[in-house]
């Protein structure tokens, strides 16, 4: 689903964020990307949903060479990748329901199907009772789940989650992890970036370890 070969990416001339990244993530896999703060986890995810250009090397998404993807096709590819952002990126002037519905609007899904999808997504993350609330009136964990609901409302084959357990207590973290596993069990490829290495080791999922923009271990499946 996601393949990178010798990929480089930098934000400026002398600040390389990712160096010689080679990794492969298979369909329906659940993979963790770990590394200390500043290692390049967010950068890697941004690269994966084409928010940053791949400056060198080769990247394949859904088996397609990204270099050959035309600019106007990028939005269409993004619709097949759900993203939970580290800072949630919920729109404060919209209710949870509207935030989740925004993806449906973008996809041109309306009417009854829109309602059903929103309800289903909110039910999965257990946030039906907060549908009418505004993001800033929610707790951190609730915002996190609203962000997940938005990422899965259009059933994307890939889900990228950046620090989805960020500042949550261990109990909530486990709940979020269970939720992500559930989504993965439906055949969705799930990639979770987190600096919480100890917690991740206990899950026995594949771990891609990166540090200072390089892959330390776990880049290939079944190594």
């Amino acid at each position: 689903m996601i393949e990178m070969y010798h990929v480089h990416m930098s934000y400026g001339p002398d600040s390389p964020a990712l160096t010689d990244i080679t990794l492969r993530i298979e369909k329906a896999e659940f993979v963790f990307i770990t590394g200390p703060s500043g290692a390049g986890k967010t950068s890697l995810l941004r690269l994966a949903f084409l928010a940053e250009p791949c400056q060198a090397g080769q990247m394949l998404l859904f088996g397609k060479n990204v270099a050959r993807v035309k600019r106007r096709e990028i939005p269409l590819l993004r619709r097949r990748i759900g993203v939970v952002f580290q800072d949630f990126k919920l729109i404060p002037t919209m209710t949870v329901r509207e935030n989740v519905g925004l993806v449906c609007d973008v996809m041109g899904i309306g009417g009854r199907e829109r309602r059903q999808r929103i309800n289903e997504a909110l039910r999965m993350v257990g946030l039906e009772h907060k549908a009418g609330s505004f993001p800033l009136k929610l707790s951190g964990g609730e915002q996190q789940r609203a962000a997940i609901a938005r990422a899965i409302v259009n059933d994307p084959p890939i889900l990228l989650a950046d620090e989805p357990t960020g500042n949550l207590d261990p109990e909530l973290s486990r709940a979020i992890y269970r939720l992500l596993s559930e989504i993965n069990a439906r055949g969705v490829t799930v990639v979770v970036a987190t600096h919480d290495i100890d917690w991740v080791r206990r899950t026995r999922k594949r771990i891609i370890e990166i540090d200072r923009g390089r892959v330390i271990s776990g880049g290939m499946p079944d190594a």
Partner: protein
Amino acid sequence: MRRSAVIVSRALVDLVRRPAVTGLTIGTVAVVFLLLGLFGLLASNFSGLADKLSSRLRLTVFVDDDCQRECRQQLQQWLQSREAVAAVVVVERQQALEDFRRRLGDDAHLLEVLGENPLPASLQVELRPGKRRTEIMAALATQLEKLAGVEEVQYGQRWLGRFFRFIRVVRTLGLVLGGLILLAAAVIVSNTIRLSVYSRRQESEIMGLVGATPAFIKAPFYLQGALVGLLGAGLGVGLAYLAFLVVAPWLRMPVGLGQSSFTPAFLSPTTALLVVAGGALLGLAGTAASLWRHLRK
């Protein structure tokens, strides 16, 4: 389609959320189009009047008494081969006298004093509508005066020439001023749209991240611009029409010798619609300017 419904509602929400800004912008556009409309009316009615007057701009070629049939025919042929000339009519001495008598009406008896007919025969030269200009007439006159048999050439009164020059100046001035206030209106619309763009900045970015096309993100702003321009222009043209209804009766005036009178006219419905559409175009241009500066990605 669902997506267009979303675009429309996003556009309307912004306009309704800031009623004062929206109202002021529409009002400004309306004033601009009112001014343009009034000016356009003035200009088009002036040129209507000018057309009426210019049909009376003809050349009279007086021929001397030696110039009889063959000589006149030659002059006539020469004239008819000119590009500017529409028609040539020969007026015999007798005919000229009759015409003069008719014009004098009750005072016709004065002619008796003269005894002999003092009026020369002439060729009345009618010019093509586009060619009724004093320069053209002057050029034609100089050429004519060199031809055999021509005694004198008279054409268009001096004040008509001045009137046409005045109209041309007014028209040029109007185009320049009109262009300037249109530009000002576009800037104001662009600033209004910028408020919307600014308030939806974060939202636009997020929409892009979840797969919205740039067109889908920008469409509501364009719609807003078009709506504001359309409403403003519509209002402006409407006000111009009201002003026209009030003022028009005062402007009705006779032109020349009674038979044709000049009636001011409003823009034709097609023109009025085109002008309102122009308002929408202005709004779109304002939006484009504002997006170009603020949503470059």
